[in-house]
């Protein structure tokens, strides 16, 4: 570095600067290198401020305790969202089950355990009261209580097996088969589960996890909807009925985001009686439906009939629960 900055153009400009009065604001000029030093210091602090492994272990212990016994069915959420992979790895298979990590919604839970990194809060439950909170370094484990909890009677996905479910496409019954899970790379769509109902016309139904329009994971029943007059029917037999049938439906992000696919109509029947119909239109993302089911026998059959005018690029998925003890 030399003093040549004060020569030539820099010197001329320096004179101009002096004339314009900027030289009086030497403190302003000094502020830039000061900000440079602050930036350097901030970087060092940020780069050396990592969550300690011991804190992860302690937080996991607290979460395992929170999910013991009657609370086993409670939900788990991680904030911020980008920390999920690390948290799932730290939690392990027992805690980070697919069911917990990809719920249809959080309203189904009486309590949700929130793992918060650096004080972040999950927007889904931010307004819920905190029943307890423990802090482990940069991690916090909060137990939130659902202020509008309606008791969940049954999650239909837990019944998705040969003894409870039949699937038909048009007039053809579909068979439950066990094969290999089909996967691919980006653009393949949701994994086609190894255990699935397969139909002669290529239709299928099986539990997978889709990336919804916001790329959140949703565990649900993947189907290819039938056509009008030949719907795909998924029937759950001997289901404990509540006051409401509450569920969600949506499509794999790449099939929904262009907003050019055919709508999908979901009709729900309890013991062959239509209780509700909801049409999913591209852009509605992971959409809730809620149908009243009061007055039916405690054990009833629930049928979902799914139709669409065009089946192309329609990786569609739904899930449902019965809620509210009658």
């Amino acid at each position, binding site marked *: *570095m*030399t003093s*040549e*900055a*004060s*020569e*030539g*153009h*820099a010197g001329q*400009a*320096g004179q*101009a600067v*002096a004339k314009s009065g*900027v*030289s009086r604001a*030497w403190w*302003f*000029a*000094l502020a*830039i*290198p000061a*900000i*440079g*030093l602050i*930036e*350097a210091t901030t*970087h060092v602090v*940020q*780069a050396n401020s*990592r969550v300690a492994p011991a804190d992860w272990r302690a937080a996991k212990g607290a979460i395992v305790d929170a999910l013991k016994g009657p609370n086993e069915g409670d939900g788990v959420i991680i904030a911020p969202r*980008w920390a999920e*992979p*690390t948290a799932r*790895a730290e*939690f392990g*298979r027992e805690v*980070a*089950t*697919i069911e917990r990590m*990809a719920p249809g919604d959080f309203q189904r839970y009486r309590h949700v355990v929130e793992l918060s990194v650096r004080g*972040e809060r999950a927007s889904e439950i931010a307004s819920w009261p905190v029943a307890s909170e423990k802090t482990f370094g940069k991690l916090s484990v909060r137990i939130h209580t659902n202020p509008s909890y309606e008791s969940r009677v049954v999650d239909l996905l837990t019944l998705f097996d040969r003894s409870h479910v039949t699937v038909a496409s048009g007039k053809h019954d579909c068979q439950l088969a066990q094969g*290999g*899970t*089909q*996967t*691919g*790379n*980006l653009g*393949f*769509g949701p*994994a086609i*589960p190894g255990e699935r109902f397969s139909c002669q016309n290529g239709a299928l139904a099986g539990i*997978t*996890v*889709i*990336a919804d329009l916001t*790329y959140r*994971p949703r565990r649900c029943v993947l189907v290819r909807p039938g056509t009008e007059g030949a719907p795909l029917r998924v029937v759950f037999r001997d289901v404990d009925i509540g006051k409401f049938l509450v569920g969600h439906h949506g499509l794999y*992000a790449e099939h929904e*985001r262009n907003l050019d696919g055919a709508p999908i109509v979901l009709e729900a029947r309890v013991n062959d009686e239509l209780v509700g119909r909801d049409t999913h239109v591209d852009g509605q993302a992971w959409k809730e439906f809620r149908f009243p089911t009061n007055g039916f026998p405690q054990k009833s059959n629930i049928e979902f009939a799914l139709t669409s005018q065009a089946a192309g690029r329609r990786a569609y998925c739904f899930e449902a629960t019965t809620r509210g003890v009658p």
Partner: protein
Amino acid sequence: MSQKITWRDQLTGAGIATGYVAWLLATARNLGFARDEGFYFSAANEYARWFRLLTQRPASAMTQQAIDSVWSANHEHPAFIKSLFAISKMVFFDKLHVFSDMSTAFRFPTMVLSGLALWITYLFGARAFSKQAGVIAALLLGLMPSVFYHAHLACFDMAIVCMWMGTLYAYYRSAESPSFVRSIVLGVVYGLTLNTKHNAWILPLVIVPHALFIRLREARAGLSKGLLPLPANVFAMLTVGPLVFYATWPWIWNDTIVRLQQYVAFHVNHDYYNMEFLGRNYFSAPSPRGYMPVMIAATVPTVTLLLFFTGALDRLINGVKRLLAALPWKAPARPDRLQIDLLLAVAFCAAVGPWLLPKTPIFGGTKHWMTAYPVLCLFAGRGFDIVTNTVAKRFAGSSRRGHLALVVGLAASVLVAPLLVTAHSHPFGLSTYVPLIGGVRGGATMGLNRQFWGYTTQNANAEYLEKNAPPNSNVFIHDTAGDAWSRMSDEKRVRPDLRGVGSPGDAQFALVQHELHMAEVDYQAWVAYGTAAPVYVVQHDDVPIVSIYRSR
């Protein structure tokens, strides 16, 4: 008139460039291969085959069959840089054994061109403002995390930064001191720039208006006679340039018009790839207009930007004063400070301007407007001049030693943050965001892109697979291209017995390189392996980069 440049300046520029190339070489081994590098490695290998044929049997090499069989590889991009990759590999790897990794030989030309970009930036700064401004500009350019990352790669993005600046510099020199040789040099450099990347198409929009503006009187006279009075240097650029472009890209030697049309159509109608911005995935037009300015603020060290704004404001004020003092057509014909500032300003706007248009895809992140960064740093260098001048008047007194100490101290204070951030960014340059927005974690929280091109597979191997994968395991390599994986395997950057496969369901281990839209691949792995829990997560400052799943 600009400052005089001596051999000492060339030595300074060469020193900066050499130091930068040495740093790049020293850090090349632990940076995995980006997706596109794999394609360019393959193309360069093909081109090397043709160069060999050219030296052994020139007549055979010049047949259309020989040309098309080789140069059809990756013909959607022009050939100059890939030719350099090929020649570097033939000379430094095959013949001289300078590099133990073939990939380093492929990457070496980009590294050299990156160093050259710093050198040219220094010279430009030294001429336009001061030697001190040139040094600061060159160093600030090298100390940008995104520049440092791309400077490693056998790709075109830093190459075009160098060639873009090379063309501007050659034009500037030919305008300052017109000569036949300088005009031809400008034409040749521009031709090679055309043969580097399509950003070059924009340069005439910078240079032609500028050339007419600085010769406004002649231009007006010519136009009144119905003539476009192009100066010789610009004429050479627009004639010699395309000839050099044609001569150095064998693919267009045959079926020229059709192939040029295909080349243009490919880039004009380029697919929109996915890119996260503020938590939303963009995959088609319209692109968010805030993308470019926000990403610059989030990835360029803040002190660099402050210096840039200071310098740019100074030049703007200076320009307005000059305009008020003497209207441009009364200005002298020879270049002066206003025209240099104008040239730099127009070049900067031309480099970033397309990203304010709603139809311009944003999938390349910051790399597509890196051609603006040398100019940004030149104004930052000017900003540093203002800082030192202003502070020196207050503190340094008349002592030369005191002034020198002050300048060194100020330089250190503005360079230390860019240096620390850039050094820390490696090998996760694309995941790096500046402290102002919270660093890597801040970028993740803001919903800014984590990475692209799948280059972090090598880190997944180093941190987990190397020690934990059973022999001959299948690994789903996600966004890593097959060619890139093969090269990593050949160079033992990943364990050679591991086999890369294209589906989680076919693998014992699945890698998921985290980007918002890649979530679908994450969830596929969950279903395939029956768990949402990775066995390991590669992280940078606590932010997940790659998840590794293991089948039961």
